[in-house]
């Protein structure tokens, strides 16, 4: 066992440093793949205090390579929480006022059961023996976590990108448990182009000889090169041409002239290599396969006879959708089609498109207009919910 354990990407997989909720054989997780996952665990963090009425809970859903450490220093990277610009004491999502929950998704690698977790049946990591996980599976697990807190209705569910997909799934699967929903830079389905990019990433991982059919831990190896390439390709889709031009143009990296070789002559090359290298230090390659697959499989309308409005029929949830002008991964049209469906369902919906050249990743950044929209939406929802300011 020593060798595979040493090769783990991080020490957070089975015994994370965050809070953990473990579900025994009596409480299996029903998966869309048609099997039960049991036992399983959810790693999560909370911030603030749940009020007596249990009406001030906000669930934050993380994106593809995010984790539960939304508003505290990340134990793996040592960096600030991924949404600390938004969430914390006195911030837009004020943890002095709200009880914020964020959990690592099922299939992830920061402590919730995923492909790097130890399979109790074999004593070795699941690898590809873990069934494919869907967005709905993630949400089903989160719902069991919310039950654990005795929260009947979440005040708000919010998230961007893959997190936004979870928000939409929450609102569709458990409308009576979601008072307000804030899906950002997301879509009700993954587009063909997005599936294509994900497939490139997966093929890069699987082409790495160190991948070993997903059993790299047993070989004491990790497909770092493949995963780094996957991250590099994906990272381009999170930015925009304008932002790349603004930041890097054709600038050379620490040199005066082209070297007529294949070193990172350009700053953009060096930047992407750095992104790839730091990523493999924190993320499990198989988990990357599972996360990307979950997004590819997401198609909320298909679950409702092809009519997206039916996914939200009769909903009383208050929605606010946000898109960014330069996001070509989830362009505004994706949000607009959700808005049209919500209009058709008679839902209460706001929709803002934010002008920025920062691409898809804008949702993670300090975007004043985004914060103004979130602030306005959360504020009016809190008044409607009777939460004191």
């Amino acid at each position, binding site marked *: 066992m020593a060798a595979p354990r040493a090769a783990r990407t991080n020490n957070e997989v089975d015994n994370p440093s965050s809070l953990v909720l473990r579900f025994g054989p009596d409480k299996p997780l029903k998966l869309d793949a048609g099997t039960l996952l049991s036992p399983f665990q959810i790693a999560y963090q909370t911030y603030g205090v749940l009020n007596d009425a249990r009406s001030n809970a906000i669930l934050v859903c993380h994106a593809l390579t995010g984790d539960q450490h939304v508003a505290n220093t990340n134990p793996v990277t040592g960096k600030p929480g991924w949404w600390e610009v938004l969430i914390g004491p006195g911030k837009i999502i004020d943890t002095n006022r709200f009880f914020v929950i964020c959990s690592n998704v099922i299939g992830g690698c920061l402590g919730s059961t995923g492909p790097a977790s130890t399979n109790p049946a074999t004593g070795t990591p699941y690898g590809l023996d873990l069934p494919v996980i869907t967005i709905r599976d993630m949400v089903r697990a989160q719902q069991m976590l919310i039950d654990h807190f005795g929260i009947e209705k979440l005040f708000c569910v919010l998230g961007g990108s893959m997190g936004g997909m979870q928000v939409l799934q929450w609102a569709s699967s458990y409308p009576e448990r979601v008072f307000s929903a804030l899906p950002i830079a997301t879509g009700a389905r993954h587009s063909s182009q997005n599936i294509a990019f994900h497939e490139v990433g997966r093929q890069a991982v699987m082409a790495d000889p160190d991948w070993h059919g997903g059993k790299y831990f047993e070989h004491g190896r990790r497909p770092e090169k493949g995963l780094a390439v996957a991250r590099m390709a994906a990272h381009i889709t999170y930015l925009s041409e304008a932002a790349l031009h603004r930041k890097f143009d054709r600038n050379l990296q620490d040199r005066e002239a082209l070297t007529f070789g294949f070193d990172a002559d350009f700053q953009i090359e060096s930047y992407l290599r750095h992104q790839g290298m730091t990523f493999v230090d924190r993320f499990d390659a198989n988990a990357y396969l599972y996360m990307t697959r979950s997004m590819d499989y997401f198609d909320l309308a298909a679950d409702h006879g092809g009519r997206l409005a039916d996914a939200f029929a009769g909903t009383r949830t208050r929605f606010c959708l946000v898109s960014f002008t330069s996001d070509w991964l989830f362009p505004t049209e994706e949000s607009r089609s959700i808005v*049209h*469906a919500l*209009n058709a369902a008679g839902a209460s919906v706001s*929709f*803002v498109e934010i*002008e920025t050249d920062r691409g898809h990743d804008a949702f993670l950044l300090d975007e004043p207009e985004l914060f103004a929209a979130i602030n306005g939406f959360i504020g009016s929802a809190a008044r409607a919910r009777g939460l004191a300011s």
Partner: protein
Amino acid sequence: MSVNGSQRVDLEVVANLIPPQSRVLDVGSGDGSLLELLQETKQVDGRGLELSQRGVNECVARGLSVVQGDADTDLEFYPDKGFDFVVLSQTLQATRNPKLVLDELLRIGNRAIVSFPNFGHWRVRLSLFVEGRMPVTKDLPYSWYDTPNIHFCTIRDFVNLCEELGATVEKATALDANGQKIGLSMPWWFWNFFGQQAVFLLKR
């Protein structure tokens, strides 16, 4: 989408037509003035549709439920009789297809409230008659080449359109240049001459 430079004297007239706790869709909600007024004074369940992204973002930041969209193309997504009232204030003249838009309002709302600047007002007539030029006034501040108001109508024109669409005029108010209501007993021609703005309550 408010395309009229004047102070919105029609807002209060519109608000007075709407009973408390109604479900209201404000088409062309601008900076959200009407929705805010209705939420504060009538506790309505209000939604907005607004063309300009800046207007929408302002509304949402103020806690209003508003989406970016175009009255000409996005009304089709709303269900039949989804609202008690659909309001179109100072926007009809800026739509590409006013007849279709009005038809949609009557489909979506149990009642429709439409306000618009009256192109039959005597100042407009005077400008055309005496100067032979398209009118530029305090209320209609645009020149002909840059105006978003592409489908002006007079009060009489609008009454005809309502008839064509099978809509009943339940209430109509004309406001003079000072924003004062013109007496109810006056005939249409009088309103059409002295009314600077008109507010109609319609049902079908």
